[in-house]
């Protein structure tokens, strides 16, 4: 594959990620609405939201640090997109390099970093509370998420390429069906709820407490970038879980596995109130950490 093809394909897959993310968020809103006895918005609502946001004026507060304020949403958006493209390339085309799992882990921390930087640069009390919460939450949920992926790396003979990890599961058996993999999957699942920022871990935006939190001062297309980031993450994070826990090269299987994870996310979202920040930290550092240790203990099984 020459370099031009790769560039073209990345653009195509980026557009796919954005479209699929917005679509799946629309489905999510529709299912949530039906669970709550509402009619809910039509499935294309998120597309119109983004189009509307891009047409709106972006106002930058006087006290904000302009550079960080503008670049934070773009960085977090590009981070999520790049992670998605890397995963798709290794799954579909087998284009993989040593350490791309670590790159993806790094890129997936960018969305939260963008939120933290954007919130704290906007010079607003509510936004700074939001970004301080986002910071604590990243510290909390990043640990189990990364730890469970480290377990996967250890299980696949220290291979850090996503393609190899998926390929290896053909011979050694699917990670999810081993004891340690099963435990680690749920650890990673809770971590990814924190990373996606949905209830019960939506404290960074908590609209009834701090009125949008870190996003408080954002408007126009910059807010649109944060919304797009969320949409892309909704595809990318489950995709990473699928690659590392349900390794297979079958598109139909991916869609099924994705839907299962998606449904689990919706169930958790709709049956829980928002947790306090200290309770979230306690949850990740006291409850989830036991599961992590257990999964490392049973690593050989």
């Amino acid at each position, binding site marked *: 594959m020459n370099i031009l093809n790769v560039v073209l394909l990345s653009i195509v897959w980026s557009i796919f990620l954005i479209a699929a993310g917005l679509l799946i968020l629309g489905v999510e809103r529709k299912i*949530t609405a039906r*669970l*709550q*006895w*509402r009619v809910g918005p039509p499935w294309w609502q998120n597309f119109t939201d983004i189009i509307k946001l891009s047409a709106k004026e972006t106002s930058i507060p006087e006290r904000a640090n302009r550079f960080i304020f503008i670049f934070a949403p773009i960085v977090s958006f590009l981070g999520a997109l790049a992670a998605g493209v890397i995963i798709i390339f290794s799954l579909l085309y087998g284009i993989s390099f040593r350490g791309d799992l670590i790159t993806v882990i790094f890129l997936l921390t960018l969305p939260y970093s963008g939120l933290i930087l954007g919130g704290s640069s906007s010079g607003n*009390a*509510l936004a*700074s*509370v939001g970004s*301080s*919460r986002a910071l604590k939450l990243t510290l909390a949920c990043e640990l189990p998420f990364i730890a469970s992926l480290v377990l996967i790396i250890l299980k696949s003979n220290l291979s850090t390429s996503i393609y190899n990890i998926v390929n290896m599961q053909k011979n050694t058996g699917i990670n999810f069906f081993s004891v340690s993999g099963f435990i680690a999957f749920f650890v990673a699942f809770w971590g990814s709820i924190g990373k996606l920022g949905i*209830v*019960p871990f*939506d*404290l960074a935006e*908590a*609209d*009834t*407490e*701090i*009125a949008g939190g870190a996003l408080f001062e954002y408007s126009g297309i910059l807010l649109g970038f944060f919304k797009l980031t969320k949409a892309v993450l909704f595809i990318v994070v489950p995709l990473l879980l699928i690659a590392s826990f349900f390794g297979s090269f079958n598109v139909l299987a991916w869609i099924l596995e994705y839907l299962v994870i998606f449904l689990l996310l919706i169930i958790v979202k*709709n*049956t*829980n*109130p*928002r*947790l*306090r*920040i*200290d*309770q979230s930290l306690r949850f990740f550092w006291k409850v989830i950490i036991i599961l992590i240790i257990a999964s490392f203990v049973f690593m050989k099984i």
Partner: protein
Amino acid sequence: MKKIIVPLGPDHPLFEEPEFFILHCDGENVVDVEWQAGYNHRGIEKISETKHWDQVTFLVERICGICSNSHPVAYANAVENLLGIDIPERAKYIRTIISEMERLHSHLLWAGLAGHFLGYNTVFMWVWKYREPLLDMMEMLTGNRNNYSMIKIGGVRRDINDEQIKALRKTLDTLKTQNEMLTKVVLDDPVLQARLVNVGVLTKKDIKDYGAVGPVARASGVDIDVRRDNPYAAYSFIDWKVITRENGDVFDKAVVRLLECFESIKIIQQCLDRIENKKGEILNEVKEIPPGEGIGRHEALRGEVFHYVRSDGTSSPIRHKIRAPSYVNVPTFKKSCIGQTISDVAIILAGVDPCYCCTERVSVYDANTRKKKNVTWTEIVRKSQEKTKKLKKS
């Protein structure tokens, strides 16, 4: 460490009405809380001095959309106290039925909103779905989903017939099962307990210090209820009990409200038994109001509402004083919010079910000094006297 000021309001998703809370925070912890009122003051007391006695009943209904039966009942109690008359028995039962249905709908509304404030939108939507048939019943009985216009001095405006009673019984039975399910779900949820238990605790002493009333006081173990302590309407003829809890946290406030719903259903069912298949007067016509003064009390949804009227024999009151329960409940924030986190403060503020339009007082913004202050009664009197003098001179 430098303190930051986190504003909650004047327009904030937490409040349905414009209201301003200034939280002085140290990180996430709230060190101090200030409250600024004066965003939707309408001068109802003053307006009522220009209206006819009968019109005031419907004016006070507009004080608050949710208490739109409580204020008229308290006002009618006050005027009937002034007149020294009693109302027909059937009217008493109908007043009780409407009051308790209002309590049911308000408590369910609060439970839904509390869920929303906690980010638990499923509870929010489900509870409001359960509440919907109740509003339909209200429309059937009174003609309006809100602002019922049911109370009149000396009785009520509409009678309830047997078909309506049948429909109402059916709705109440379904509501009871739904409420049982809801109570179980809410009270047994470990995550909800983690968010609500031991949050915003008000002790018995705090309640006495601030003079808080209603479910807020009852959740802290203070056993007060105007319906029992100073019975009016049909409450003394009926078997029911006052719900109290001991801890005084937000969880207990929720428990008190949810259990009061069952009591309300019980009260309505007994009232329906007494008026079914019977006919009777519903209005004791009042022709003229003599000079004098009267007080009326009513256990509204959030606590005791108090009305005072004075007459000089003309067609409108010369003084009408209203004290709504939120006016004494809101200052308890000073005690319950300090030392909590911002997340908890949101639910503590919602926990007393504050109603700001009842509580509003005049406030004046001085353009020169850029300061805002609330105006006291003596100051208003002084200002109006000055204005009268000025008018007399010209």
